């Protein structure tokens, strides 16, 4: 099992979610994150004084999948996440050793996504 972690733009998430759902991957989690990378900071002004912000808002997607599904997930994210501008984000893949479904206590690869008939 692998965990795909992606930092992407907010507006890229919706098409990614929809396509993953269609591909049979309804299960994922997201978190708000802020990141810095190649993009420059922006400067805000408040009653004449300045404030520089280096971190820009991103969405972090976390999705644990079977080893064979990693590429599908990555491709989908790349497809919808790309605008070509700096700040589009990064994708990382980490190893996962075990997984449990809390509802039933089952563990193993088959709990990662909803069973075909269940959805």
């Amino acid at each position, binding site marked *: 099992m692998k965990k795909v972690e992606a930092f992407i733009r*907010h*507006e*890229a998430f919706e*098409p990614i*979610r929809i396509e993953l759902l269609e591909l049979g991957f309804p299960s994922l989690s*997201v978190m708000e994150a802020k990141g810095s990378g190649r993009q420059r900071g922006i400067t805000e002004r408040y009653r004449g004084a300045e404030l520089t912000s280096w971190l820009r808002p991103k969405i972090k997607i976390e999705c644990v999948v079977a080893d064979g599904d990693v590429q599908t997930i990555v491709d989908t994210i790349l497809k919808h996440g790309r605008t070509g*501008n*700096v*700040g589009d984000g990064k994708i990382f893949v980490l190893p996962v050793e075990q997984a449990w479904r809390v509802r039933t206590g089952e563990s193993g690869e088959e709990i990662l996504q909803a069973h075909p008939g269940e959805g």
Partner: protein
Amino acid sequence: MLLLALALALAAAALLAPSASAAPSLEVLGLQGRLSTDLGLNSAWVVVAGLFVMFMQAGLAMVEVGFVRGKNAGSIVAKILANFAICGIVFWAVGFAFSFGSGGLLLGTHGFFTEGQSAFPLAYPINPKGVTPDTLWFFEFVFCAIALAIVWGTTLERVKFGVYLIYAPIFAGIIYPVIAHWIFADGWLRADLHVQDFAGSIVVDVTAGAAALAVLLLLGPRRGKYAPDGKPRAIPGHNMPLFGLGILILWLGWFGFNPGSTLNALDGRFPEIVLITQLAGSAGVLAALAVMWMLTKTFDIGMAGNGAIAGLVAITGPAGYVKPWAAVVIGAVAGVIVVFGVIRIDRRVDDPIGVLSAHLLAGIWGALSLGLFATPLLAAHNLPGSHGGLLYTGSFTQLGSQAVGVIVTFAFVFVSSYAVFWLIDRTIGLRVSPQEENVGLDISEHGMYGYPEQFIPSPELIGYGAVPASLRIGTGPLSDPDVTA
């Protein structure tokens, strides 16, 4: 539809009703420009005072918003609007006639739909030093409306919206009018027992508090309020700034509430009542802050606000009867009462904004304090036949009357309201389901969070993520490299 039908029926009734009075109507007098300056002045003053009282709806709304959790903040808005709306129509149709219409010791029986100028003994032309009947209607309506709004303070975060729609017309149509008739107009408590209540410590606050207690007993606490061992746990409100705004708006409104209750700008009393109101509010804040500081070594924000309300509630009854120094005492005692009241009551029943302490207990204290501190001169002025307070007269007479007034009011309102709420509980139910309570009333009763951006994931909110790819614009020179369109 139903409402429209009702409205049309009313219309028909009103059109057919013969205009009962023989004297030239106010309307005609006014159109001919024959109203006196004094009547115009009194009416303008009382309408303006009533506007400040009306604004207390916003004050209470903000207090409640501040004291509930964010997931229930929106429901306060719908609640206030619906109750205020219902009260307007019902108090016009029947409530005002029952309370201030002429009739007898038990209930007014004239003046439904504000018809018939002579039906209102407190208003011009029957009381030519007073105000026009419509002015009186408005001033008394905003009192009824704020009393109704206060009732719901004990029920926040778990009551069904439908409960408002059933109880509000009953409260504004009959429960409140009965008490207002008995104590403010020419009912038996005032006429026979000389119960005194300048601006409503009893009529507004004890009434609201009694109804609030009735519904609370049936409703029970919010989920999780009491630990398994019965210990109360803090459920902090989510927004102290809006709470503070609410307190200040209420304080402002009280300067309409008490001074406007002179119903008169010409007897020179209202400016002193402004002073007296301020002193009691001041003392309430300081006493509550001081007591809390002794108890917890912190300056509790919510208690400071509750102290203000308690002081103002307590002075509402005696405002027109006492000297300024007494207002300081009355307000300070109320500030102490409210702190211990909130803490003690919290151990047993769950009263999110402190209605039982700040309105019921402080209202009772205010009513009784009149029996202690009323000066004989002012008592005689306000109601010939009534007595000065214990401090001046050495007599318990007025204090006794006040106690009777409190007990009768509490008993009548509590019993009648309990009956109504019991019936509601047995039929449609008073309380939302545990799931709905968990998820919050905003989403479960109103279909949308009060703060959508706080509760809905940003990728699903348009403008924060959910812009379909097809709407995206191409790349290009961007001033902020991190923003694509």
